[in-house]
């Protein structure tokens, strides 16, 4: 099967306009005849469900949380990018496009990224109209700040709670449609399978997490907005509930999975404090606007109080290595630099896995009040977790798994290789290449949901006229039986190890062997160990309770079972990609000064993996990345 990305022809800047004109429309009176299933209520899912319902489609929205407002988009702190050029500092749609393609280490699809930069300006308008309380200047206009990987200030923010405020905006639009009866909402409901009839996605099988009831929902199209797979590493900045189940089970039904090895390690997280740790907490990248990153020059100084180390004995390594971007170097580069200095034995804090993020200079220059106004809630959060006051002493930070650039392969219309299955937001692979820039995830989630999917899904309906399939169809019954059998199997093992112990062990394997630095040998170790761990899981896991009730142990068991399969694909993808790019750093492929070394001649493609069955190797399909507009350059932030 050849992958057709369906990128419109013509000049880059006109592709989306032209495509919008060429797409077929659904007559307003006919829209109500189509039912759309949207799974997930984060920025992408909530904005899509609301916008589709506003257009007149019948929408069913699902989330596993107790309320759609709790999706993990809520935790994004720093901001959202848009090419508004309000500060008059030279920004443009083209510059945002270029920065994103470059930031993604030339592994993103050019046409998608350009479209994203185009709709970015509409997103800000929409959010402001919804009442999102963005930060303002005294004159009443919107405020901006700068973020990693850019030399212009294009990031809009709402204190340190931008994700929360944007999500509440999308949630309020969704709530309005629920109140109007245009969306039916199913909270505490988890997708457990995608139903395919005659090669098209026709519905889903879900479990009611309160009663345990398994049921089917039919739709003319299914939209997955189910987020990323960072929790395959166990410890990550993702919420505890984030999982790969929806996209992985869709993959098993025919939706190819693209670039799973592109995982983002965020440079500024609070370091691990012990084995009990259940998750990691991010400190917004915006802190790097005013904080300076350093470690002692000498190993011997690492144990000393930071204030006692004189200026001359400090190594501000980001400023030293990347003078033009300094502390605002992109995430992959900053993370790796932190790992390097810690590997050299110059890390600080317990276990030596930490670097300082120091605000002393900014406090001296701007006053504590200004710093408090900009980052007050982040400093408070830091103090709650560590018990330390970052106004008095530098923060300690260390990289942690944060975001998945990889995801379900989608074409320009955001449709997967399974017709009728659309995938949006972090769950798809499309816009960030091998590394995502800060403040771009919110932009992509809302861009997909508000301004792209509502057009492209209509084209699917109008051009294919999909047949209606009721939930009484044999394929639905079959999928329900499969899900029920899986539940019974998990409950019936009655082994000796807890689900969490397996998840932790998998996470450790992934972090050690497929984390910030990967090598052939470590990946091969994982490809041997993961199947063994999976086998042990299915023999020796202990899942308590029953299937006919609220059972969190069972929910987790299903998710970990999927991670145990998906992790293997991630490592396989990392092994096959014999180059370093963005978040994927292969130790064998680096320049003399330790920077990522791409191999454009052999790897300038999207790797889309087709599931071939439980004991068979997935098949690799390649979508070549053709750059019509930009020149694939070596990425430099020096």
């Amino acid at each position: 099967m050849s992958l057709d990305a369906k990128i419109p022809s013509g000049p880059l800047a006109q592709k989306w306009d032209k495509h919008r004109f060429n797409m077929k429309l659904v007559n307003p009176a006919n829209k109500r005849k189509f039912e759309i299933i949207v799974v997930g209520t984060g920025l992408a899912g909530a904005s899509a469900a609301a916008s589709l319902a506003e257009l007149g489609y019948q929408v069913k929205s699902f989330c596993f949380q107790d309320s759609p407002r709790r999706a993990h988009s809520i935790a994004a702190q720093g901001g959202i990018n848009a090419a508004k050029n309000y500060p008059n500092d030279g920004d443009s749609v083209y510059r945002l496009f270029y920065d994103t393609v470059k930031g993604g280490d030339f592994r993103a699809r050019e046409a998608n990224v350009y479209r994203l930069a185009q709709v970015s300006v509409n997103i800000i308008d929409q959010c402001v109209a919804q009442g999102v309380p963005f930060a303002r200047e005294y004159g009443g206009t919107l405020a901006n700040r700068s973020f990693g990987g850019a030399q212009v200030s294009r990031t809009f923010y709402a204190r340190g709670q931008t994700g929360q405020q944007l999500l509440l905006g999308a949630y309020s639009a969704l709530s309005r449609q629920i109140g109007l009866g245009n969306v039916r909402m199913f909270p505490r409901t988890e997708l457990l399978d995608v139903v395919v009839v005659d090669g098209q996605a026709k519905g889903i099988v879900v479990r009611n997490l309160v009663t345990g009831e398994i049921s089917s929902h039919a739709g003319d199209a299914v939209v997955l907005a189910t987020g990323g797979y960072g929790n395959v590493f166990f410890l990550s900045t993702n919420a505890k509930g984030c999982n790969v189940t929806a996209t992985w089970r869709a993959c098993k039904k025919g939706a190819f999975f693209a670039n799973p090895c592109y995982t983002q390690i965020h440079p500024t997280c609070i370091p691990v404090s012990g084995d009990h740790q259940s998750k990691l907490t991010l400190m917004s990248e915006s802190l790097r606007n005013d904080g300076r990153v350093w470690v002692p020059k000498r190993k011997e100084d690492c144990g000393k109080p930071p204030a006692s180390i004189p200026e001359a004995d400090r190594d501000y390594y980001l400023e030293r290595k990347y003078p033009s971007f300094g502390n605002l170097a992109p995430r992959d580069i900053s993370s790796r630099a932190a790992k390097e200095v810690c590997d050299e034995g110059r890390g600080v804090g317990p276990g030596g896995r930490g670097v300082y993020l120091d605000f002393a200079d900014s406090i001296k220059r701007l006053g504590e009040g200004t710093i408090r106004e900009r980052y007050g809630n982040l400093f408070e959060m830091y103090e709650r977790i560590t018990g330390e006051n970052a106004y008095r002493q530098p923060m300690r930070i260390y990289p942690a798994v944060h975001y998945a650039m990889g995801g379900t392969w989608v074409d320009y219309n955001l449709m997967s290789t399974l017709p009728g299955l659309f995938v949006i937001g972090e769950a798809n692979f499309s816009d960030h290449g091998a590394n995502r820039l800060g403040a771009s995830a919110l932009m992509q989630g809302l861009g997909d949901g508000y301004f792209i999917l509502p057009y492209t899904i209509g084209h699917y309906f109008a051009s294919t006229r999909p047949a209606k399939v009721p939930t009484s169809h044999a394929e639905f019954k079959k999928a329900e039986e499969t899900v029920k059998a899986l539940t019974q199997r998990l409950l019936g093992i009655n082994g000796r190890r807890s689900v969490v112990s397996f998840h932790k062990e998998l996470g450790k394997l992934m972090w050690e062997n497929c984390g910030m630095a990967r090598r052939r040998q470590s990946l091969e170790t994982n490809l041997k160990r993961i199947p063994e761990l999976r086998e042990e899981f299915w023999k020796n896991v202990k899942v308590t309770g029953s299937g006919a009730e609220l059972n969190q142990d069972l929910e987790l068991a299903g998710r970990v079972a999927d991670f145990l399969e998906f992790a293997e694909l991630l490592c396989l993808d990392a092994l096959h990609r014999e180059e370093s790019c963005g978040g994927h750093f292969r130790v064998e492929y680096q320049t003399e000064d330790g920077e990522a070394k791409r191999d454009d001649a052999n790897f300038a493609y999207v790797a889309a993996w087709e599931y071939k069955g439980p004991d068979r190797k997935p098949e690799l399909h390649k979508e070549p990345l053709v750059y019509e507009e930009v020149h694939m350059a070596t990425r430099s932030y020096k």
Partner: protein
Amino acid sequence: MNLTLKIWRQKHPAIPGFFETHEAKDVSPDMSFLEMLDVVNEQLISEGKEPFAFDSDCREGICGTCSLVINGVPHGGHKGTTACQLHLRHFQDGQTITVEPWRARAFPVVKDLIVDRSAFDRIIQAGGFVSVNTGNAPEANSIPVSKEIADLAMDAAACIGCGACVAACKNASAMLFVAAKVSHLNYLPQGKAEKDRRVRNMVAKMDEEGFGNCTVTGSCEAVCPKEVRLEFIAKMNRDYGAALLKGERKKTAAEGVG
């Protein structure tokens, strides 16, 4: 450190609950309260017993999912802190701690420490939005909003919808939650067009859902993890009064019903 926990156990909403006592041994002061519960649950699983069901998701104090009453206080009574961000360094070695779900008629217990807060969603559905369809928005900077107003709206919008305010209130009133949303939108020029309708509909829904009345004791403000202020209740009362005085315009026959 070692702790003794008295944790609420309730199999089903219809079956009365009770406290179960468990020991949390050798826990670290650097653990969060929920990580300590994880340890207790792992211990229970290893003994073949059922773990306690409790809600949590982001574990960084922003999603509003966690909902524990710790020693009688929602979220444990540490200023501006959710249960998931509460660390054991604030407890004494050997201390006995009670852990209960939110208690309110409008938040029925689902299981153990989990309650049903969907009443909050229904209040938002009644009016907690600006009626603007996607694509309808004017250029973002065309309506200036003074920094003071934007900051005030943000203070109110910081509410995470956890429901601690209801759990703390002797009447289980939802006034702080509703006032936060009403204030956030009513302060901003974008929300002005439906100001009256919003406050009327949201208050009516709040009453219908079975939340109690507000007597302004301020217990809600004291436990709010986002420190949403009582003054927003005054703002909502003002807006509500004004909306009532203006009255709802009767539709003419030509406009039809509904």
